[in-house]
């Protein structure tokens, strides 16, 4: 690989990753580490959602089913087998294979539907998984759930931190490459205009199914990490609330940006923690959920594109503006006017 060709942003992301490696040596409190670990896990989950929502334009209300599959696979395997690294690897493999199979079937069954309907259908399917987990009590322990043990190394907060960070970084770069690959570009085209993509000679259902399998597998992996971070699982891993949370993280961060969902996950995790810990400052913080709700409302009104989306748009505009100034020799209308016009179209 030619180093000079690597994008500048890659270096920035790598530098941030390195910083994050140092964090657990500074923040040694395990409870803070736990919050950061949750942030990593939900960042992975949110990125997987972004592949669907942001890059392919699919709204799913049932994404949590893959997360749950990952969580339960791990918990059940670790509960039934010895708590060794080997069974952990087995758990991951099972989680991924199951998620891939389920997302493939779900995708092939449902991705031909129009957006609303697809969303509702996935909601229903995730609901069925939830019911399944509640009813199949011999396997899942019902809604109370069950605990399980882990090999020593995974119980250690620092090594768990590193594992989650490493997963996050690898998955981030992996997905980023995916979105910038020719395949990823077609996904974006599908998001923009399905029919047109089809008439360019792409089979959109294939793309959607592949995208949903990728998203499903990544979500399942997030579920694996989630259950080992809790060493416990119950039916809440299939709850619609979880989909809603991850949806909000993605939107707040900015859909279709990949880094946005990570930031969104961080914000939601920390805001949640922070707001609920302010309870003795003022009674309103006891009802922190109200503030939480207000934050969502304000984000939509003031940052409709999400945080990263808004920043990118500003940046993109400026960049383009400068480019315009240099080029464009044949121009019929007078300069100033045209400038306005371009600007104006972009905002329109």
């Amino acid at each position, binding site marked *: 690989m030619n180093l000079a060709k690597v994008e500048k942003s890659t270096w920035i992301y790598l530098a941030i990753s390195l910083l994050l490696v140092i964090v657990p040596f500074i923040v040694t409190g395990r409870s803070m580490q736990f919050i950061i670990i949750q942030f990593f896990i939900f960042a992975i989950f949110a990125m997987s959602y972004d592949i669907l929502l942001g890059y392919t334009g699919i709204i799913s209300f049932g994404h949590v089913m893959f997360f749950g599959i990952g969580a339960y696979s791990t918990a059940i395997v670790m509960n039934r087998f010895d708590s060794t690294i080997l069974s952990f690897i087995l758990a991951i493999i099972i989680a991924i294979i199951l998620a891939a199979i389920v997302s493939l079937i779900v995708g092939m069954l449902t991705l031909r539907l129009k957006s609303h309907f697809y969303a509702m259908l996935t909601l229903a399917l995730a609901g069925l998984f939830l019911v399944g987990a509640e009813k199949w009590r011999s396997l899942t322990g019902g809604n109370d759930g069950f605990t399980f043990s882990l090999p020593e190394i995974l119980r250690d907060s620092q090594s768990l931190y590193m594992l989650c960070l490493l997963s996050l970084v690898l998955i981030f770069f992996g997905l980023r490459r995916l979105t910038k690959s020719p395949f990823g570009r077609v996904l974006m085209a599908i998001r923009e205009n399905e029919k047109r993509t089809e008439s360019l000679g792409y089979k959109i259902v294939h793309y959607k199914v592949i995208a949903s399998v990728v998203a499903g597998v990544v979500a399942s992996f997030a579920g694996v990490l989630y259950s080992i971070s809790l060493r416990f699982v119950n039916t809440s891993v299939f709850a619609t609330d979880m989909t809603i949370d991850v949806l909000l993280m993605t939107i707040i961060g900015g859909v279709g940006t990949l880094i946005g969902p990570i930031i969104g996950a961080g914000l939601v995790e920390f805001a949640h923690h922070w707001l609920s810990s302010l309870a003795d400052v003022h009674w309103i913080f006891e009802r922190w959920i109200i503030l939480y709700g207000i934050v969502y409302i304000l984000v939509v009104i003031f940052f409709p594109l999400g945080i990263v989306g808004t920043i990118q748009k500003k940046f993109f505009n400026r960049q383009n503006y400068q480019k315009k100034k240099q080029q464009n020799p044949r121009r019929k209308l007078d300069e100033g006017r045209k400038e306005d*016009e371009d600007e104006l179209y972009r905002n329109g």
Partner: protein
Amino acid sequence: MSSLLRLNQVEAFIQKFHILHDISFEVPKGEVTVLLGRNGAGKTTTLRTIMGLNKVSKGSINFQGEEIGNLLTHRIANKGIGFVPEEQGIFGELTVGENMRVAMKKEDEQTTKRMEWVLDLFPDLKKFWKKPGGALSGGQKQMLAIARAYVNENELLLIDEPSKGLAPIIVDKVTESIQQMKEQTTILLVEQNFLMASKIGKKFYIIDDGRTVHSGQMDELKEDKVLMKKYLGIS
């Protein structure tokens, strides 16, 4: 003849961009007045501004002696101004009939009569009465858009490029219908089809870069090759 509509030094913005700089013209009652100008000159924006779909930032728009410059769109429409927009504005999921029903302000005898007249003019619409507007062919949509404006009793009609995408024979029909229509209603027309415009228009204004730069009688313009080249790109 008194003028029904008078624009005086109208300026308008779209978001923060100055699109109309100085538009001034008069539409005399009972005539067809034509706005001409090249692509992007501001013709559509002018019509939209009259309709209240764009804000007037300066200047005045006077309709029947009354300032309508900053009224809300539906108020303006209810003063008796009909509008056929450039992009047709068909309600795709409503049937042709429902499109017409949304447009009809009253259901009295007059309106029924007018409806019959319109359907005679465009029999295709009658044929596809129950078809969703979105499933119409390009030209049929254009007819529907015109029909919706014809069905109400209006003082003034603003029509933006009615001939776009129409078969020559339909263009004839539309031309003829406008000629019939102008007996009762004043018309302000934007048209790229010069042939059609010159047939029905009496007075014209040329808009360039958001300014009314020239005006005159349509008959004279036909002869004035220089002017046509300069503002309309026709040689």
